[in-house]
């Protein structure tokens, strides 16, 4: 049916024969840790057919029997108010997929008074159900009480208390799973009318001897500071600066290490593989491509480590509470802030972090905005171009002008990201009702190390598995385009190229490559921006990853040091056309280039991740299309405006 069906992470054939057990519950009930405890590392992530909702499925082994376990989207009720909740209801009804055979209703014991209303709605569906009671240890610590057996009698279904991070109760839960066919069902189904439901909940609670937990003292005291109008805001910005700094400073040496490792590897290839063409393909394209993917890994793992730590502690909800009003201006909600902030480092973990948003529309809007945030890969390009544009000694007041231009570009990225999110939220899907915003404030807890590590592992492995192929393939194709057709030494010498000078050789090869032909072919497109075909080749090669622009320009300009092409670039002139002989890198051209790089989606990895997270090619294509068109238009505007000012 939908093009994404075959890749939707559906269990392999034998798994469909297994009894299907689905986990349902509120977003903070501990569903994911119960799921992880049951399935271990066997979980598969994918998407539900045709929608941008992630699907988590795995298998659970009890003795010699196996169960297919699925973690359904979290919800507070079964009247859907978002796409994700529609998926939950469809899954329960078996609408478009196989209905579960049995349900595990995961309930936070400290929110039992609210959660039993949800239990009533689920039980009314009549599927064999078992209630999994989490956080009972916390309930006891906060002077609450509940009799699990009495609760089971009052509800008429089995109840198992599980303390996920300690592993308590898991054996009992597995035992229960074996008997799912014999699970008792309520003699009288719970009332569906909300008014009667409250009375039913109170009667169940009193039968089960429920005593509500006392307010959590630490949480009260911490919130008095962390959510204080002034102090809380100060702490929030401190946490975010620290967060950002950690990602940058800790990831940089790790990324350097990854780069160095692959540099050594490709150096080894160029020494041991004598055929220059094969050595280039293996060393530059394959190893370079794999390295280009792996270089993102330290940042992704660090970001997810920090995000899941903040999430596990409970600070993420507080951050979302503090930022909600600001994000509301863009039609987003507080939780989108973290995803956009992460995109300052790299859009890939930022887009992956949109998983924390409960509404699919918000996720799409955030994903469409994330590539606009100034990622680390734009930095080297900006540094070179600003170096060409602005005199390093120029100042504006007490600030260096170069730094100000850089700051302006960061600001441009952030503001346009917010505008893009707003536009996608407003015009993206007019059918849907706006999702109401509500957010549970969990008490502060010590995060379970296992849960944190699983989150990091999950992010890293899904990035590697799903994205490496597409990125490596694109890098190979680009390399082939830049290096074909082949030139023999005789041909090079005949063309007057000094074959001992590798920079000259690569410049000649690039000049006469298919990519150069493409560069000349697209010249009419980029002519109005003042780009000549050599810049076009740079822009095209940067299409796989922005930072390659610097090295490619260096190669094309035949600079002696490809990493510092400034002087060679300054001397570059148009080689043909009406502007022949004039310098290329004038202020209007550089301004156009800067703006083009600020907007264009020149990152194969980002395209791959959007495809991966949305489960369809539609959104990566939309993102690519709208960002490229915007980039061109605004670059043209920047060129025109700059030309007016410069004269």
């Amino acid at each position, binding site marked *: 049916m939908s093009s994404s069906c075959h890749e939707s992470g559906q269990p392999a054939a034998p798994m469909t024969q297994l009894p299907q057990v689905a986990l349902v519950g509120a977003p903070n009930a501990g569903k994911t840790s119960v799921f992880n405890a049951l399935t271990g590392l066997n979980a598969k992530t994918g998407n539900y057919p045709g929608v941008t909702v992630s699907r988590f499925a795995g298998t659970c082994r009890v003795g010699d029997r196996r169960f297919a376990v699925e973690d359904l989207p979290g919800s507070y009720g079964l009247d859907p108010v978002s796409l994700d909740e529609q998926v939950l209801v469809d899954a329960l009804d078996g609408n478009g997929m196989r209905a579960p055979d049995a349900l595990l209703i995961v309930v936070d014991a400290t929110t039992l008074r*609210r959660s039993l209303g949800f239990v009533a709605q689920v039980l009314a569906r009549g599927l064999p159900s078992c209630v999994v009671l989490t956080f009972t240890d916390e309930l006891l610590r906060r002077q609450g009480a509940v009799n699990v057996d009495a609760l089971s009698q009052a509800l008429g279904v089995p109840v198992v208390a599980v303390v996920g991070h300690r592993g308590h109760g898991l054996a009992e839960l597995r035992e229960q799973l074996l008997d799912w066919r014999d699970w008792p069902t309520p003699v009288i189904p719970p009332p569906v009318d909300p*008014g009667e439901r409250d009375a039913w909940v109170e009667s169940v609670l009193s039968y089960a001897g429920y005593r509500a937990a006392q307010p959590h003292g630490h949480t009260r005291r911490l919130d008095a500071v962390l959510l204080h109008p002034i102090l809380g805001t100060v702490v929030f910005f401190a946490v975010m600066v620290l967060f950002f700094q950690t990602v940058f400073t800790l990831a940089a040496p790790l990324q350097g290490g990854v780069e160095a490792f692959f540099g050594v590897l490709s150096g080894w290839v160029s020494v041991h593989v004598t055929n220059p063409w094969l050595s280039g393909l293996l060393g530059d394209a394959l190893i370079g491509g794999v390295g280009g993917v792996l270089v993102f890994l330290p940042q992704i793992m660090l970001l997810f480590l920090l995000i899941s730590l903040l999430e596990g502690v409970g600070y993420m909800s507080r951050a979302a509470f503090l930022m*909600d*009003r600001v994000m509301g201006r863009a039609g987003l909600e507080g939780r989108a802030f973290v995803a956009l902030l992460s995109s300052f480092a790299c859009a890939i973990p930022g887009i992956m972090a949109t998983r924390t948003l409960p509404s699919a529309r918000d996720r799409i809007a955030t994903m469409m905005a994330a590539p606009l945030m100034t990622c680390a890969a734009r930095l080297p390009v900006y540094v070179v171009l600003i170096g060409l544009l602005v005199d390093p000694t120029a100042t504006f007041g007490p600030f260096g002008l170069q730094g100000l231009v850089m700051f302006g570009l960061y600001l441009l990225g952030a503001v346009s990201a917010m505008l893009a999110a707003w536009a996608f939220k407003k015009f993206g899907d007019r059918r849907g009702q706006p999702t109401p*915003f509500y957010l*549970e*404030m969990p008490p502060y807890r010590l995060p379970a190390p296992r849960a944190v590590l699983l989150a990091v592992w999950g992010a890293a492995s899904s990035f590697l598995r799903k994205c490496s192929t597409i990125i490596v393939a694109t890098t190979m194709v680009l390399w082939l385009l830049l290096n074909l057709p082949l030139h023999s030494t005789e041909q090079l010498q005949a063309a007057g190229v000094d074959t001992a000078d590798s920079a000259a050789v690569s410049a000649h090869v690039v000049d006469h490559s298919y990519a150069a032909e493409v560069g000349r072919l697209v010249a009419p497109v980029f002519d109005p921006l003042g780009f000549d075909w050599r810049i076009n080749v740079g822009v095209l090669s940067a299409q796989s990853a922005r930072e390659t622009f610097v090295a490619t320009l260096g190669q094309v300009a035949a600079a002696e040091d490809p990493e510092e092409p400034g002087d060679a670039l300054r001397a570059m002139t148009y080689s043909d056309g009406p502007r022949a002989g004039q310098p290329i890198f004038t202020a209007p051209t550089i301004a156009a280039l800067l703006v083009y790089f600020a907007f264009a989606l020149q990152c194969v990895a980002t395209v791959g991740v959007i495809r991966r997270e949305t489960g369809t090619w539609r959104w990566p294509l939309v993102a690519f299309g709208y960002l490229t068109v915007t980039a061109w238009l605004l670059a043209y505007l920047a060129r025109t405006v700059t030309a007016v000012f410069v004269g």
Partner: protein
Amino acid sequence: MTSRTFEQGTDGRPGAEARHGDRPRGEARCGERTLADLTPSATAQVVSVSVPGSPAVARRLADLGFTPGAKVRMLRRAPLRDPLIYLVKDYEICLRRAQASCVNVVAVDR
């Protein structure tokens, strides 16, 4: 029932009169009317939930614990006065002003 309550709420008078029986006469005018009007640490009791044009959102607010008769305590406001945190049914939940103003309440004496 929910939509009728909303209409009364918007044109003011009939709604205020309808709730007169619940409170001493003099308080009718200055008494709080929705969750959004509560001040931090004030407590109120939910009368009804009414979201015009979106019964699913009204039901969701009920699922979150804002059912008629439930006691709600406003805990705090965000720095820019929105969103707001409430204590209801033994747990803390954050709502935007837009949603909080859909929950009609009466003040409770502490």
